[in-house]
Each structure stands twice: as structure tokens, then as C-alpha cells.
């Protein structure tokens, strides 16, 4: 589904991604973790070209995302992206947030888009908030609407960039519950998160990143029981102590 081929990226003199060479299989549920500044958010943002890359190639479903000839908008429409800060459109209701892209891109009639959006809001448990504006929703509710919005384009790949990091602790659970539910759907999911419980329960694989490199790739069982790389051992020890 996703192939990173010798991908590097610099922010000025600082190398944020160092020669990443990895693949993510279709249907795989991947959790990317690592200390802050390790490049995991940058990595996930390169998958739909919210960040450019300076060397290498990224292919999604066979197509080169960073090639100038790529129809980026069409590709992005098939990739759902969930942001740490939700980024709902504040001037639109929850329902309108979910119908905007299908309507604007001509993927559905007004009635179809509305119907599907309502079904998606129902799935994230917020059908009764369809007419609410984002400012009237809690953080957890906003993030659930944002997930419904990402699903509205019927993507085959879903990217989560620290989806629970901006939430109050009591709202983390409701968002994770929605993500667990999605994980049963067979979508390919890449999730940057610090939620180790979620990783253990849902992920097929875990990548551990530090200083722009993927240092370890393992099943959740192996990663949490028998981390190989010293940085991964140190990282796990630190979050267990917290």
C-alpha cells in the first residue's frame, strides 16, 4: 500500500527523515511511536504530501506521491487524514464538515452526501450532533467528527497524526474506541500515537522511530516484551515509569 524508498527530508541543516526504506501492506494497522522530535509526524505527513521530501520516493497504491505529474488532489481524496488539532471547519456544522469534500469534488449528490455523512456521524456516535457547530462540541466529539469527515471520501488508507494528544484525558477513550472500531474494517491504518494500550491491542506492527530513522519494526508483542534497540528499551522504560 505504502512504499518508502530511501526517503530523506531536511529542515534547513537538520535532517528530519534519514533514508527511510519501509513498506506498509494493504490492510495493515501500523502504529508509529517514538520520542517527540523523532520525525514520526513528519513521516506521516509526507504520505499525502502535506510535507515535501528532499530525496527518495513514496508510493501509495503504486503511484508516486511526490512526482510533479501526480494528480495530487485525486490521490489525497483516497487518503483520510486525522490531525492532532482536529482542524474542523468552524463555520460549518458537523454534518457539513462531512459533506463538504464529497459535494465539492462531485462525488455525491447533496442527498447522498448527507445520508452518508449522517451514517458516518452515527458510527462515531454523534448523529444527534449533526447540526452542531464545532465550537459547540467537546474536544473528543470534534475529533470523532474529524474522523467521520476523513471517512466521508471512502478512503482506502487512513492516517492519524497523534489523534489523542490534544485531548483531555477523559476524552481519549471515546476517540480510541472509534479507532478500534475502524480497525476491524480492513482499512489500511497508519497511526502516530503515544497510546501504547491502543498499539498493543490493535496494531499488526509497531515502528519505533528516533532521530529521523525507523530503529525497530516488530509485532506489538515483540516490541513491548522484547525491544531490541537500546533506544526503544529506554523509551519503553520511560513511558512505563510515567
Amino acid at each position: 500500500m505504502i512504499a518508502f524508498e530511501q526517503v530523506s527530508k531536511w529542515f534547513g541543516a537538520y535532517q528530519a527523515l534519514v533514508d527511510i526504506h519501509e513498506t506498509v501492506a494493504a490492510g495493515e494497522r501500523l502504529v508509529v511511536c517514538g520520542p517527540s522530535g523523532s520525525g514520526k509526524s513528519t513521516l506521516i505527513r509526507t504520505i499525502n504530501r502535506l510535507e515535501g521530501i528532499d530525496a527518495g520516493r513514496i508510493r501509495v497504491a503504486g503511484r508516486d506521491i511526490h512526482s510533479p505529474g501526480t494528480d495530487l488532489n485525486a490521490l489525497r481524496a483516497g487518503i483520510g487524514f486525522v490531525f492532532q488539532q482536529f482542524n474542523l471547519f468552524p463555520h460549518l456544522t458537523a454534518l457539513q464538515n462531512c459533506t463538504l469534500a464529497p459535494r465539492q469534488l462531485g462525488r455525491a449528490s447533496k442527498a447522498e452526501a448527507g445520508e452518508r455523512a449522517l451514517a458516518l456521524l452515527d458510527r462515531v456516535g454523534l448523529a444527534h450532533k449533526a447540526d452542531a457547530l464545532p465550537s459547540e462540541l467537546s474536544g473528543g466529539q470534534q475529533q470523532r467528527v474529524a474522523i467521520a469527515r476523513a471517512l466521508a471520501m471512502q478512503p482506502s488508507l487512513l492516517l492519524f497524526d497523534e489523534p489523542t494528544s490534544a485531548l483531555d484525558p477523559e476524552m481519549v477513550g471515546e476517540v480510541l474506541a472509534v479507532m478500534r472500531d475502524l480497525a476491524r474494517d480492513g482499512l489500511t491504518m497508519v497511526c502516530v500515537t503515544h497510546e501504547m494500550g491502543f498499539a498493543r491491542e490493535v496494531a499488526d506492527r509497531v515502528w519505533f522511530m528516533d532521530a529521523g530513522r525507523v530503529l525497530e519494526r516488530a509485532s506489538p508483542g515483540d516490541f513491548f516484551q522484547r525491544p531490541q534497540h537500546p533506544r526503544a528499551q529506554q523509551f519503553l522504560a520511560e513511558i512505563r515509569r510515567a
Partner: protein
Amino acid sequence: MGFLEMIDTYWLYFLVGQYPDGPLGGLALTLLLATLGLLLALPLGLVLGLARICPWRWLRWPVTGFVFVVRGTPLLMVVFWAYFFLPSVTGHKTGQFSTMLIALVIFDAAYLAEIVRAGLQALPRGQMEAARALGLSYLGALRSVLLPQGLRHMLPSLVNQFAATIKETSLGYIIGLAEISFIATQVNTLVFTLPTQIYLLLGATYFVLCFGLTRLAYRLERRLAQRLHTP
């Protein structure tokens, strides 16, 4: 001649100038000039403002240069350019009304462009990113996501600029355009005993126009705010 007698004699002249026996003038011309100026400057300012922040350098640079030049120039200079320079380019004389209208539109569009730019750049970066991540084009994201939010923030500054436009029409006096300031000056030379009253009346007229506009805008702002905060 007393104040009331002056009003009684010249009120129609204040309102419409020599019309219908001559060209339209007075308050009617001021209103026409301001309205047309706003209607033309707003879309132009919007386009220039979008060009100022667009990703395409070939468009951004010349527009930025234009905005800098106009903003660094007094309106009077722009009026002179339009009055003396335009005919030498087009080959035929431009009427006073058109000259003033062109000068106003160019001048105000540059200021409106900066309001539009600031209004859009003040929005969180995540809004553009979220719209693009859904597959919307740059222009589609502007139209559906950024402009509807930005215009709401811009409204107070836009109204401020509109009020300025009304006052700027008075510079038409310089090129002999018979707008209300020109008419007031003429009446003052005819009735030379009442300069204070005549110019107070002129000032009050501008005040009523601008104040009315700001009140209208204030009500519009409140309506928009209500629509945003009640489901």
C-alpha cells in the same frame, strides 16, 4: 442671506448639482462615485489579495510590487496620474467621473488587498491543510473553507476602508468633478457670508454617510456572529 434662505435656494444644487439641465452632481454624484468605487474595488481587491499570497511567484511578485507602490502614494498622486497620464496612453481624454472612479478603484483595491491577505493569513494553517488533505484544490479550499471564515474577520476592516472611500471621493474637487465638496465650495463663493455653516453642513453630510455605513456593518456583524453561535 441667512442659513435657511441659503438652504432654500441651493438645496437641489447640493443634492443633484445642475441635473437635469446639466450633468449630475452634488450628493447624488458623491454617492454614485462611492458606490461604484466600492463595487469595483472589492472584487479587484479580493483578486489582488489572493494573488499576494498565492503559491505562484510570477503572479505574486508583480501584484506585491503594485500594492507597495500604491500604498506608498497619496491618493492625490493617483488622481493626477489617472487625469494626466491615462489620456496620454489611451489617446483620448477620460471624463472627470471616470478618472476619479479609476483612481479610487486602483487606490482602494490595493488597501483592500492587504485586508484580504491579512484576514486569510490570520486563519490557522490547519484549515488549509485539512481542506487540501480531503482532496480539495488550492482554489477550492480558498472558496469553501478559507474565504467564508476570513471574510467574517475582515468585515470591520472592510467597512473601515469603505468609509474611507466615501471620504476620498471629495478629492474629485481637485479635477473639477462636481461632487458635493465641489458644489459646497461653489455655493460658498456665491454666498460668501456663510462659510462656517456651509462647511459644517458638508462635514455633517459625510459624517451621516460614514456613520450610517458603520452602523449597518455593525448590525451585519452581529447577525453573522449570531448565526455562527446559535445552532
